[in-house]
């Protein structure tokens, strides 16, 4: 629950973003000749069947042979997500269909769903027209909307698992799932927050509860899990959480975003980190703030990355600065990994928190300039 919201700026009319022409979509496109590219994922490897392919619609078939839940990504420069599949349980296969113009990309498996993943190069050759400025902006929103949908799908799955654990009175499992489910929420938080009535029900902290309103959602269960450990009466709260999450997922999936909203959302996510996560306010009972920190950072990066082709045309120096500062924050945060997750906020010294705070501020300044570059 925040004060900053993903509001449509009054000046949005400035943007003559033509309809979502050309790129994107593609779900109905014909399957490429030669069939899907097999990806064999394990806990320590990510074998991609073919690393030099032709431009166009590509399908990857990802099989998880490991013991951890996995993810598979295709990234363009700056970790721009071209496509991804989340939540591939051990033993399962899932397909990713993605439209790839000529260029160099990276593939990544993320066993345990964390970190940079196991990366590999992917070269795509063939004909692909260069993208015109307005088309680049249109593609940015289409690309980010694909990202939002992938996150909402995972949010729903993980919330269902979390709710089941709560209702089954399995405290240990609920505690383990709590920061994971929230990861998907935190990545797309500004989108979710644009639906003002639902956000406080799902993500409201205790102090936001007004007279006549019930304290529900993730943080209500967090409090019970980490203070009394008694969740035996939280069944109705958990049910309610799932209903609310389903409602917000439906709305977020239908939401049409503008490039300016992407820019402002990327900034808002970093402001979240700077104001609530760095202080430990957000996860005051579980202290899993660094999970949120990382998710906010990834979400911000995804929005910036979607805008990247447009920014490269409009503000190439800004792109360089953004790359450097994103890398700096990731390096600073990366020191606090713990297994597949993150250290607790309470395990960090004041000095370590200041380093993180400085790096977020250093990143948020250039990110705050994206909107102007997009608007002109």
């Amino acid at each position, binding site marked *: 629950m925040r004060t900053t919201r993903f509001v449509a700026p*009054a000046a949005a009319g400035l943007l003559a973003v033509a309809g979502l022409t050309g790129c994107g979509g593609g779900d109905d496109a014909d399957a490429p000749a030669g069939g899907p590219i097999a990806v064999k994922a394990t806990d320590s490897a990510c074998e991609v069947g073919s690393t030099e392919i032709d431009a166009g619609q590509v399908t990857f078939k990802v099989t998880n042979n490991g013991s951890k839940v996995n993810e598979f990504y295709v990234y363009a420069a700056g970790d721009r997500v071209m496509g991804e599949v989340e939540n591939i349980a051990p033993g399962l296969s899932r397909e990713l269909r993605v439209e790839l113009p000529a260029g160099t990309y990276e593939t990544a498996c993320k066993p345990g769903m964390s970190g940079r993943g196991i990366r590999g190069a992917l070269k795509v050759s063939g004909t692909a027209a260069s993208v015109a400025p307005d088309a680049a902006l249109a593609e940015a929103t289409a690309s980010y909307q694909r990202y939002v949908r992938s996150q909402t799908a995972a949010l729903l799955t993980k919330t269902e698992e979390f709710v089941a654990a709560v209702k089954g009175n399995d405290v240990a499992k609920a505690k383990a799932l709590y920061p994971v489910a929230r990861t998907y929420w935190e990545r797309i938080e500004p989108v979710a927050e644009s639906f003002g009535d639902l956000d406080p029900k799902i993500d409201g902290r205790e102090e936001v509860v007004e007279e006549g309103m019930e304290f529900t959602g993730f943080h209500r269960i967090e409090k019970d899990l980490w203070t009394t450990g008694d969740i035996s009466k939280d069944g109705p709260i958990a049910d309610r959480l799932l209903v609310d999450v389903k409602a917000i997922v439906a709305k977020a999936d239908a939401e049409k975003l503008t490039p300016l909203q992407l820019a402002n959302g990327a900034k808002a996510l970093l402001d979240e980190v700077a104001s609530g996560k760095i202080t430990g306010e957000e996860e005051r009972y579980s202290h899993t703030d660094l999970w949120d920190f990382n998710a906010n950072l990834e979400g911000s990066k995804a929005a910036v990355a979607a805008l990247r082709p447009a920014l490269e045309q409009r503000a190439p120096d800004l792109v360089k600065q953004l790359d450097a*500062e994103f890398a700096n924050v990731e390096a600073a945060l990366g020191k606090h990994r713990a297994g597949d997750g993150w250290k607790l906020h309470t395990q960090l010294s004041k000095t370590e928190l200041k380093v993180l705070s*400085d790096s977020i501020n*250093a990143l948020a*300044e250039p990110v705050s300039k994206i909107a*102007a570059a997009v*608007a002109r």
Partner: protein
Amino acid sequence: MTTPAGGDATSEPNSQQAGRGISRRRAMTLAGVGAAGVGAVAAGAGALIAGGGQASATATAAGAVPFLGEHQAGITTAAQDRLHFVAFDVVTRDRDRLVAMLQEWTAAAARMTAGKDAGLIGAVGGVPEAPPDDTGEALGLPPSQLTVTVGFGPSLFRDAQGRDRFGIADRRPAALADLPHFAGDALKPELSGGDICVQACANDPQVAVHAIRNLARIGMGVVSVRWSQLGFGRTSSTSRDQATPRNLFGFKDGTANLKAEDADLLREQLWVQPGDGPDWMAGGSYLVTRKIRMLIETWDRSPLAEQEAITGRTKGSGAPLGRRDEFDEPDFAAKGDDGEPAIAPTAHVRLAHPDQNGGARLLRRGYNFVDGSDGLGRLDAGLFFIAYQRDPRKQFVPIQTRLARNDAMNEYLRHVSSGLFACPPGVRDAADWWGRALFS
């Protein structure tokens, strides 16, 4: 705001940048009539920072102090009423980024001291989608004699791990020697030191805070605020035009201070001379800061005679004990009616006096501070001591050593923060910037 790295930035004259800015007053007018594209109107506002020299004594309290000059403004400038002081740690190891920031800082300070916005676009001149490049709280306020003074700490040359991060360790002046531990020091490391300091003084606290806030913002990713201090009520006069103010003990402070009019003494005691050390410091000065907590409540219930004996001056006129007027020279040989020295051996004025310190003097321009209360209901208050000098080893260090050992006032004081900085000479012309000689 860390973009203009590389060659272009060095060749872009600060005065040109400043000239393209827009005065805060003018920005307000334009905003008032609803002009949208203010940025486009800004051209030709005229160079406002031209001219050398230091503060003119005739400038009004709201006027602008010239930014360019042989020495940095804010040292002999007639002490303004308000202070915002900040010490930064440099968090980048990229020398080019540090240099680019110092260039940006110089340009922004030139604009702000002239009463203009920190950035070229300004608080209200840009596109609606972008955050303004000035924070805006000084819109409509006059320059208020803002001065912005920069210094470099020992840790900029070699950090706590001994690293020479920016390839300047061999340029560290010998005079920038770490201060010794003084008897009774209760320094808090998190409130002490720093790689770079910025002293902003103005007659309006909002203007001083505006200056620091905008420089801190420009510096994000390059520097990180380590500690900062607000001050009010100057505790020294640096000009004979100024009356001697009072500190929070209620005593006049700065009676015997070095003054802007003492040209010969300033050469001898204040400004680093060619040959003193590395060339880049010639025309500069060394700055010592000390945050001195005063135990106000216990002082307030000590008898007047004891307060005066501790200080060595009368509380009313500020005259040395045994003399009549404030500016009378203290007579350290004089005896009182009881046959004891009129000015006690442990009196503050005796121990700090140049006659007792081989002629060593300081230019002090400290400020009172009150940081609220301390949770026990005691004022968290005292003196933020600021002293400029030619060589701390010969000036501040021996004086403070003597005071720390013997000063009767120590019973009522706690030194909680300490800083030492080398303040380079003034920004000479449009192509110059803070630290150019050090980094070139």
